[in-house]
């Protein structure tokens, strides 16, 4: 197990190195940040000054070497635009995004799992069919449209919920989250619902497919033949078997939700890091983009690791040590 974790972390370091190089070169190829940072009437001298201050006058390989050297000491550079440490900028906004992503994921499971199981148990009933039809909508409706419609209905027409921004942030046990204030929770409802919709649709389909498959297994019939109550047959024997794919997909999706909740954050003016990434790309703010992707990669690697560990907890046949990869 420990060997597995260490090997996994080493692999992720390699991925990190490759990715940082790609992003470095990529941003360099897109354009010159100095052209964006300098005011339109700046002189050639001013421009050279800016370039020198940012270290952009040196050749690319040298810039990369400096970056790597600094990064190894935990310094990921300062934002060209804000002049603040890039990591600091990201962490400032990460709380809001992680909070949104986690709430959305929890909601999607709480909604998707029971609906999916129900649809799997009664595939031919009206309710079961409606759930499946609904999940297709959940898949195919574009996030921005759903967001706008939710705002239209609940904020504009009914006036029940706020349409934008993060509400009051409370703190509890040193954690800062809008979940700790009523105002914060009210602000979370619409964006979290929007974000949860697609995930819930995925969960419904996975749960339904899983139930349909597992229900015909001999061990389910054997569990019934033992005289177990139906809720134990479904809640333990079936559920534990269908959780394997659901945990895998959900775990991986949390990562992508955190990393790329840009659309939802934009619609609801949510002060998360998705917006920061878009702005930084537009401004060619390389340190922030690189630092952002490092954070995202780190989150994805961690989630992958957690998923693999959970996988071995859920499925005893999986032995982490022997696994290659």
């Amino acid at each position, binding site marked *: 197990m420990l060997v597995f974790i260490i090997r996994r972390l080493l692999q992720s370091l390699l991925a990190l190195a490759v990715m940082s190089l790609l992003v470095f070169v990529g941003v360099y190829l897109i354009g010159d940040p100095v052209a964006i940072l300098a005011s339109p009437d700046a002189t050639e001298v001013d421009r050279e000054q800016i370039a020198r201050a940012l270290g952009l006058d040196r050749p690319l390989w040298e810039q990369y070497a400096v970056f790597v050297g600094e990064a190894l000491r935990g310094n990921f550079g300062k934002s060209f635009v804000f002049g603040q440490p890039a990591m600091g900028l990201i962490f400032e906004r990460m709380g809001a995004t992680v909070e949104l992503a986690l709430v959305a994921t929890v909601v999607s499971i709480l909604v998707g799992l029971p609906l999916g199981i129900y649809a799997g148990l009664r595939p031919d009933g009206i309710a079961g069919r409606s759930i499946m039809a609904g999940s297709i909508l959940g898949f195919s409706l574009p996030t921005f449209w759903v967001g706008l419609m939710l705002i239209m209905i609940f904020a504009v027409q009914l006036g029940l919920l706020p349409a934008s921004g993060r509400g009051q942030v409370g703190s509890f046990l040193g954690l800062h989250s809008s979940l700790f204030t009523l105002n914060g929770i009210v602000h979370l409802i619409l964006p979290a619902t929007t974000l949860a919709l697609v995930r819930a649709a995925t969960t419904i389909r996975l749960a339904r497919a899983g139930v349909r498959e597992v229900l015909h297994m*001999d*061990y389910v019939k054997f569990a*019934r033949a033992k*005289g177990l109550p139906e809720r*134990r047959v479904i809640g333990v024997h079936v559920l534990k078997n269908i959780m394997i794919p659901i945990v895998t997909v959900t775990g991986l999706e949390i990562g992508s939700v955190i990393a790329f909740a840009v659309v939802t954050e934009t619609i609801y003016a949510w002060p998360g890091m998705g917006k920061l990434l878009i702005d930084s790309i537009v401004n060619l703010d390389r340190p922030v983009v690189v630092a952002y992707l490092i954070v995202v990669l780190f989150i994805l690697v961690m989630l992958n690791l957690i998923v693999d560990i959970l996988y071995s907890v859920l499925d005893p046949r999986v032995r982490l040590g022997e696994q290659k990869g």
Partner: protein
Amino acid sequence: MSETPTLEVRNLQTHFFTREGVLKAVDDVSFTVRAGEIMGLVGESGSGKTVTGFSVLGLVDPPGRIVGGSILFKGEDLAHAGEERLRALRGSRIAMIFQDPMMTLNPVLRVDTQMTEAILAHEQVSERAARARAAAALAMVGIASPEERLLAYPHQFSGGMRQRVAIAIAMLHRPDLIIADEPTTALDVTIQGQILYEVQKLCRETGTALVWVTHDLTVVAGLADTVSVMYAGKIVEQGRVDDVLDRPLHPYTNGLLGSVPSRNRRGQKLRQIPGMTPSLLRLPQGCAFRSRCPRADQACTEMPALAELAPGHLARCVHPHLETAGA
């Protein structure tokens, strides 16, 4: 013999309502099993023997349904019992052992979980007491160091071991009736012998009635007291095991016996039953076996009744092998 039989199935009909039509998987099946008695339920794949077993437990999957007859378990009709009553009987009074031991245990739950839950589903005992009983049950079926094995997952057992675990689970509540659906088919011959021996011993000791569903006549010969032969959803022959196997009345039973290789007929050509089991959706009119039967003629287009042709020996045939029956 005045006591109520453990299981008395009367004119059971279990049909599957599929899109292609009504599939009469079990069509007018009757048999009786008394306490401590072992009945072999013999037939080819698709003859309805497994569905008969599931019908007794009320575990027929939709679109299947029991549409007629009665299943009297110690006098109580299970065909019309409520789901909650059936659940209470399942596992505690009527247990089932399945065909494929690789598939019957849940792969993601430990053996102790799967055993104690079976106890706790029927009895209010402590977790600890349930564990102790589970361990004792494992020891009873010949599993070494049961305490340790309780902590294992099914994939850490061999096929034979898993079937022993399944049998131990079936025996946990000392049921009155066990339905065993080809439990040794997937196992090695040596393991098969051991398990047959264990099951037989347990039944004799505890007075459990046993319905042994199988296609293997040699197993029936060594194990059962009575035998019912099924073909296309109907019982075609029924009687004491010696009568049926030594003096088969129905050409189908005769054919089955002829297709078993035997030392007494070394060098002779193995007889076989021509053709295949007919689809239950397209059964020939009259006797379902007539398309494959060497004795069939015009009279067979009418379904014969199951008749007692020798004392305690029933067959459903127009032209039974009465000459060999010595009646």
